[in-house]
């Protein structure tokens, strides 16, 4: 995995003029060391949790169950939906916003996928395009309300959560719509079931999608002007606006991305469960926020990284997995998850401040 680096432009170029005057800071090297530890905090955390998981994993016939390829693939499959949502959430949180509607949009997208294929008899491509469009439009609308009217995103997306759930229930008649495969009426194309399958029987398709989207977003966030604008708005919105950053447009785009990825996660969800239920995805928004926070992205906006989010999502997945392997009660798992979130946030507080 690429190391997360929120400050792509910052890397000190070799040919910059030497400092003219030493400044009153920590010595450069130590400062960089400390800074890098915190920047890659979630990566260290991921490695630590991984090693602990190996150590405490049950062993059967001399094989470490946690390390078996089947188990590892399952972990990534299990986090793929939350992971994809968390990627979108990272953009939103980087501009200092929050998107509470993603879980509900996932449910709406799952219902949409099932209904369009089963009831309307659409093919896979039109179905996927329509559902992604719905998610994107939903996100963009929320973004427009935030950007134009200036309501806090917490409130707008809280309302969006309710609305998306309501739409999903109306659309599905309140019931889960099962997806049967075949060529007949009321049946979805066989190919859709690929979403629950694996490539070569090893790599689960959702996991591949998650990794691909994660890497794509990571590159986007490290290289593009759009990403610089996202960081700038989160860092100081007023300064960004006065510097000519198209604040409204970026805001809308960021929420649209979040809606798009939530819809994609919904399609995957429908494919994995072979049904679309309007209640799918309840509480996913909180898991996604948790992944972003563990990844070291500041809820205040302006600093954080996509690599951190990916590591955070995987960390949560490993944690759930190892606790389940050891037959630890699901309720205890929740408590452990809570502790990890607080610990990650507390670590960020220890990060040396510059001003």
């Amino acid at each position, binding site marked *: 995995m690429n190391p997360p680096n929120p*400050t*792509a*432009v*910052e*890397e*000190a*170029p070799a*040919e*910059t*003029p030497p*400092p*003219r*005057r*030493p*400044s*009153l*800071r920590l010595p*450069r090297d130590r400062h960089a060391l400390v800074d890098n530890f915190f920047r890659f905090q979630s990566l260290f955390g991921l490695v630590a949790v991984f090693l602990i998981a190996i150590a405490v994993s049950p062993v059967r016939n001399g094989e470490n169950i946690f390390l078996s390829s089947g188990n590892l693939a399952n972990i990534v499959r299990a986090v793929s939906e939350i992971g994809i949502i968390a990627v979108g959430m990272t953009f939103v949180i980087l501009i200092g916003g929050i998107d509470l509607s993603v879980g509900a949009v996932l449910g709406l997208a799952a219902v949409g996928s099932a209904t369009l294929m089963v009831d309307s008899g659409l093919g896979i491509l039109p179905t996927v395009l329509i559902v992604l469009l719905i998610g994107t439009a939903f996100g963009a609308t929320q973004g427009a309300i935030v950007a134009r009217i200036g309501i806090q995103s917490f409130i707008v997306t809280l309302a969006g959560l309710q609305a998306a759930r309501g739409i999903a229930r109306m659309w599905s008649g309140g019931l889960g719509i099962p997806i049967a495969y075949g060529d007949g009426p009321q049946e979805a194309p066989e190919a859709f079931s690929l979403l629950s399958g694996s490539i070569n029987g090893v790599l689960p398709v959702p996991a591949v999608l998650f990794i691909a989207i994660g890497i794509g977003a990571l590159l986007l966030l490290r*290289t*593009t*002007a*759009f990403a*610089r*604008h996202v*960081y*700038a708005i989160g*860092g*100081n919105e*007023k*300064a*960004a*606006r*006065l*510097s*000519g*950053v*198209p604040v409204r447009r970026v805001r809308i785009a960021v929420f649209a991305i979040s809606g798009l990825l939530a819809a994609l996660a919904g399609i995957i969800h429908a494919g994995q469960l072979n049904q679309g239920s309007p209640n799918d995805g309840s509480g996913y928004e909180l898991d996604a926020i948790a992944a972003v926070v563990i990844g070291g992205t500041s809820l205040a906006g*302006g*600093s954080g990284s996509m690599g951190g989010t990916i590591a955070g999502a995987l960390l949560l997945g490993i944690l759930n997995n190892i606790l389940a392997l050891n037959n630890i009660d699901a309720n205890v798992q929740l408590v452990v998850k809570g502790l990890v979130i607080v610990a990650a946030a507390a670590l960020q507080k220890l990060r040396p401040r*510059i*001003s």
Partner: protein
Amino acid sequence: MTERPLVRMTGIGKRFGGVQACRDIDLTITAGEVHALLGENGAGKSTLINILSGVITAYDGTIEVDGRPVSFAGPVDAQRAGIATIHQELDLVAGLSIAENMFLGREPRTRLGSVDIRRMRRQAAEHLRTLGADLDPRRLVGSLRVGEQQLVEIGRALSLDARVLIMDEPTAALADAEVERLFETIAGLRRAGVGIVYISHRMAELEVIADRATVLRNGRLAGTVDPKTASRDEIIQLMVGRSVDALFGEGRNEPGEVLLDVRGFAVTPRRPTPGRTEPAGVDLTVRSGEIVGLAGLMGAGRTELLETLFGAGGSGRRTGEVTIDGRPYHPHGPRAALARGVAFVPEDRRGAGLMLEHSVAENVVLSALSSLTTLGVVRRQAVRRTVAEQLTSLAVKAASPAVAAATLSGGNQQKVVFAKQLLTQPRLLLLDEPTRGVDIGAKAEIYRLLHRLADTGMAILLASSELPELRSLCDRVVVLHRGRTVATLPRASATQQAILAAANGDDAKETR
């Protein structure tokens, strides 16, 4: 004034890093006097005040209160010793009532431990009555006008048994009637034996209200005068010193074509924002290669005018004519302004100019990213080169382009803001207090930079509260009063007296 002073500060000095903010200052405050503290921005007034009010705890020299040496561990300590401060930005909670604000953090309790609301209101009402304010202590502070809020702050000081009251530009945000009222209150406090430290830039006020004036210059004591007998010129001379004009170069090119032309420009907001003075009849012209100054008192509407010209002002109906190169110019946002070649360096560089926690490099390129990308992808090599060039050309002192902007000194932060705006290759540069909080060396560098830019044909419109800065830098000074152009003074006749007179509205007979 031979009686024992309430407060005696002796040999006060303070360094911030490499900057000596003040040195060897003596100040006494006696009971029942209004002692004005004068000086330009950066003269050391706020440092001195922060030391006296316990905000700064490490300094040279001694402070005595009632003849006993004291050393405050914090503002609360100073308050206990009877020294209260009323800041320019009032420290009130808008959502709480007057009484709750007055007793915030030390609410009277009933025997059961709950807040004794009735006692609190009664005492608040008493203090308000002492001040001659007819206000219901139950009213929310957010619903009060600024002058009334000030009275609440004074009331709080009274409830603390303050014997020394420090007032930092108390009239800056007040309307005339409210100023009258405040002066009556101050006179009452003086009769009651309170010693008042009064900071203001308005000469006319000092003649009315101050008993003594201590003038600071460049962190040192420049002199103490009686403002009732000393002439304004004398005081300004003390504030400014003689050498200022020599510090900044002379000799400018002939200006070129008219670039910015503003005629009868006004903004009528649908809903006026308290504390904002929108343009209300502005006339000014800036030619290419010219530096035009914008003078006026606090609240004269300089910042609002610059913001509006940059497309970042308040909403409201625009009337009058604004043209750039003879073509109408009404930007609906900063992007539109930048697209027309207009750049803006805001007054509040920490709040509006920089992303403090982001690197210097990121800050420098933010406005010009579109010219440094291919298909939306930032060309890192180009960014590195551009940043290095800009930092060298403006002589920014930073350990590396990768350090956070917050680690730079004020002057270097300001240069980073300049670098960012100059990268957009503007033809008109709008500057709001470009040297505020900048040390004298960086100041001179910024002045040289402005001259250099003007020589390349850039048009510069510069708002400043520092008269010597305007005088020495500008080809012309436009004076605003309540959002209106009241005078346009060519360099030769832009004396400090003329500027101050116009800024005080002496030439403009108000009919309000």
